C-alpha cells in the first residue's frame, strides 16, 4: 500500500509549523508501516501531549491521544489486553523523558512489545520553547534565557540502561535511514525505541539562532552521521538489538502455567 493511504487526509494540513521536522518523521514512520503492509485495524497508535503527539490524529489506525507523558502506560493497557495488536507510541522528547520518564524506563525494563518513536526537537514545542531534558547544555530556551545549565539525557543510553531491546537513532535529515530504523523497530519483538531528531524552527531554532528550517536541516545533516566512525558527530544507526523474553509473551506463559491453560 502507498504510505499516504495511512494518512487521514481529511485532517490535513496538520497543525505543525512550516518546516517542522515532525512531518518528516511521521512520513518515515508511515513508509515503514506501508512496507510491512500493516493492517490498519490491527494497529493502535498512542501518543501523549505535545506538537509531536498530535501525530496520532493524522494516521488512520486505532488512535489514542492521551495525557502529557502517559502514552506508554496507556499503550501498556492496550498491548496487554490485545497482544496481537501492533502498538506504537508517538511521543516527544519532553513527553517521553521528562513527565513520562518513569513510564519509559519501566516499559523498557519489562521489554513490553511497543515501538516508541521519540520525536526529539530538543525543546517543548507546544508550550512555546521551554527547555526539555534533551536540550543540550548551555543552549537556550524560554525558561533558560541565560543558557540551560542542566545536562541532557542521551536517550539511546537511557533506553539501553533501562533494558530496551532495540534502540536506534535517526534524523529528519536522513529520512531513508530513519525509515529503516523505524522499520527494524517495528519488526523487533520487545521494547523498541527510535529517537528521531527533528527540527523545531519556530522555537528551538529561533532561540538558538539556528536560522530557518532549511538551515536547521542542514545543521542536522552536517552534525549527525550514519557513519560507524562518527567522531564528534551525533551517531545515527541501530545501537541495541538483542533478544530477551517479551513481556506479553511472559504474561501469557505465566497465565498458562498458573491457570493450566484454561
Amino acid at each position: 500500500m502507498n504510505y499516504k493511504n495511512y494518512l487521514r487526509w481529511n485532517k490535513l494540513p496538520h497543525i505543525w509549523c512550516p518546516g517542522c521536522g515532525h512531518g518528516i518523521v511521521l512520513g518515515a514512520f508511515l513508509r515503514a508501516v506501508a512496507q510491512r503492509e500493516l493492517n490498519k485495524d490491527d494497529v493502535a497508535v498512542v501518543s501523549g501531549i505535545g506538537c509531536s503527539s498530535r501525530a496520532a490524529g493524522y494516521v488512520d489506525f486505532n488512535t489514542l491521544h492521551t495525557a502529557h507523558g502517559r502514552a506508554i502506560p496507556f499503550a501498556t493497557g492496550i498491548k496487554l489486553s490485545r497482544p496481537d495488536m501492533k502498538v506504537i507510541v508517538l511521543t516527544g522528547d519532553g513527553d517521553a523523558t521528562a513527565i513520562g520518564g518513569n513510564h519509559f524506563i519501566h516499559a523498557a525494563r519489562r521489554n513490553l512489545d511497543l515501538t516508541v518513536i521519540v520525536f526529539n526537537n530538543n525543546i517543548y514545542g507546544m508550550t512555546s520553547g521551554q527547555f526539555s531534558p534533551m536540550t543540550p547544555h548551555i543552549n537556550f530556551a524560554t525558561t533558560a534565557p541565560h543558557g540551560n545549565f542542566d545536562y541532557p539525557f542521551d536517550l539511546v543510553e537511557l533506553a539501553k540502561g533501562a533494558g530496551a531491546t532495540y534502540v536506534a537513532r535517526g534524523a529528519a535529515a536522513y529520512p531513508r535511514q530513519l525509515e529503516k530504523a523505524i522499520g527494524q523497530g517495528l519488526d523487533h519483538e520487545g521494547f523498541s525505541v527510535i529517537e528521531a531528531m527533528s527540527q523545531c524552527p519556530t522555537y528551538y531554532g529561533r532561540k538558538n539562532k539556528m536560522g530557518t528550517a532549511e538551515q536547521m536541516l542542514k545543521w542536522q545533516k552536517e552534525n549527525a552521521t550514519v557513519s560507524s566512525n562518527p567522531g564528534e558527530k551525533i551517531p545515527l544507526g541501530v545501537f541495541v538489538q538483542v533478544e530477551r523474553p517479551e513481556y506479553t509473551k511472559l504474561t501469557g506463559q505465566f497465565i498458562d502455567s498458573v491457570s493450566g491453560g484454561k
Partner: protein
Amino acid sequence: MSGRFQVEIDPAYCKACRLCIQVCPKKVLAQRADGKAIVENPDDCIGCQLCEWHCPDFAITIKGEKKNG
C-alpha cells in the same frame, strides 16, 4: 519531451518551507510568488524522492519508474 518522472506538488498542503527545494540535487523545484513550491525543471528529475521524503506536509508525490528498477 517529458521526463521519466512526474513531480506533483499539491499547493493545498504546501507550507512554503523550502525544504524540498534545498534537498533536490537537480534543482527541479523552485518557489512561486507566494512562497509555495513549484516544479520548474521537470525534465531534470531523477526520481530520487528526497523532496518527497523531506516534505513535512505530504505535499509532494513523485511518480514514474523507480530508480534501480
